[in-house]
């Protein structure tokens, strides 16, 4: 799986030399969760991460290249939840180390990536209300006054996310990065987030069938930029020629 390697490289470069606090994954330092999405009203909210008018970004990248990882960890760049006093810019970047999916059917690759990405819809930490839009790539979080009093931190929220990611079949390691620093190039991050979404959308289109003539193909631009997408496409076609059908 090298579809996202280019994007992971860009993220690494963008965040290089930035002050960061690293927390190795600790299973018993998670934050309690609700059993379903709970709404936090403004009157219960201390502040909002990525509030309207501020950058708010969510990126999930998957790779089988272990050199990007040094164990499961939470990384915080910028002020932590207890330090923030008002609305702040926000990004959550998740990097996942997966099994090598070389030779896998497009359908399987797509499903695996979707399962990993959809974790964001199923994490409901108490007093940490996540609103995430696949359409715009935005992720905004309302931080509850009560949860802050009880000691909520990014480390605990990150460990909760890691717990969910590690439960997805195929995930070998995970890193969740929380960004609240104001001097980050969020525009660039938003572009990376957009590309990450486009990769998954392209896989969805590949499942539906695309022409083998690149000049007339809808996703040729993204294929030109993302290493591995074209191989996946033609690898699939080759298998089809060999009589292996894809549902």
């Amino acid at each position, binding site marked *: 799986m090298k579809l996202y390697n280019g994007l992971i490289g860009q993220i690494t470069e963008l965040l290089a030399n930035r002050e960061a606090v690293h927390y190795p994954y600790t299973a018993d330092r998670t934050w309690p969760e609700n059993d*379903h*999405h*709970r*709404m936090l*009203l*403004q*009157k219960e909210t201390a502040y909002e991460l990525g509030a309207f008018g501020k950058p708010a970004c969510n990126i999930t990248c998957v790779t089988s290249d272990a050199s990007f990882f040094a164990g499961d960890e939470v990384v915080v760049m910028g002020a932590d939840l207890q330090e923030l006093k008002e609305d702040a810019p926000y990004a959550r970047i998740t990097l996942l180390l997966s099994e090598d999916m070389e030779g896998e059917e497009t359908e399987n690759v797509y499903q695996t990536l*979707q399962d990993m990405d*959809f974790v*964001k*819809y199923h994490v409901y930490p108490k007093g940490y209300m996540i*609103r*995430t*839009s*696949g*359409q*715009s790539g*935005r992720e*905004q979080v309302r931080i509850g006054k009560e949860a802050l009093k009880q000691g909520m931190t990014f480390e605990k929220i990150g460990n909760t996310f890691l717990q969910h990611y590690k439960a997805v079949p195929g995930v070998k390691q995970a890193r969740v990065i929380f960004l609240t620093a104001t001097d980050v190039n969020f525009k660039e991050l938003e572009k990376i987030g957009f590309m990450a979404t486009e990769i998954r*959308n392209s896989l*969805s*289109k590949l*499942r*539906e069938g695309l022409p083998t003539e690149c000049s007339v193909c809808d996703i040729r631009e993204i294929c030109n930029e993302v290493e591995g997408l074209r191989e996946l496409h033609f690898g699939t076609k080759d298998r089809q020629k060999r009589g292996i059908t894809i549902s």
Partner: protein
Amino acid sequence: MSDTKILALVGKGGVGKTTLSAAFVRSLAQMHPEAKILAIDADPAIGLAIALGVEVKQTLDDIRKEVIEAAKNGAGKAAVELLGEARFRIFDALVETEEFSFLAIGRPEGAGCYCAVNAYLKEVIDMVSKDFDYVVIDGEAGIEQINRRVMEKVSHLFLVSDASFKGVQVLRSIQKVAGELVMYEKCGAVINRVDNPEILEQMSDIGAPIVSVIPSDGDLALNDIKGQSIFALKADASVLEGAKRALEQMGI
């Protein structure tokens, strides 16, 4: 059903449902200052917004259209993504004040079957309602929303009528349909603008106990013509007294 108390007001157009809904919201906010209260304006005319003094920028139906558009443009969006999108955008339609939150349904447009729209409305109302202690739904005039099962799960159904023959007639038919299609725990009638108590003698067979009788109120009419919200009314206004009585009688 969760612990949320869902109060729905139904009746003929012009009988005072919207004012009474606003009065319920104000009374509940005063009786339970810590409670989370949601007012839903299910009438396309969005009169409840004016009665509560809030400004509507987007309706649930605007969001529905955006989500459908996003689904059309997206490649094979999964249901969880669409629900996530609706959950993200619902805050664009939710007006939040210290006392209550407000959501307008809007006007579902398009000819033919409304099944998808109704399913969406029900889904969103269910999704949002769970997070509130009290939900007050100002229904559109008549029995359409009951027929379309938008108000399938309410805990307290209020049948509202004025002291008119037509109002009571509509109320009887609503009660009949609601009895078959709505799962409610309690049902009561509120009779509005009653200046002669003898009128009540003509209302013995409406199918639900009368839980409050509210006389006409000149101050309310003045408040209304000035375009002022229910919060501008004096605490002893007859509609507020009547609303409190109705809530108490229904065990709320």
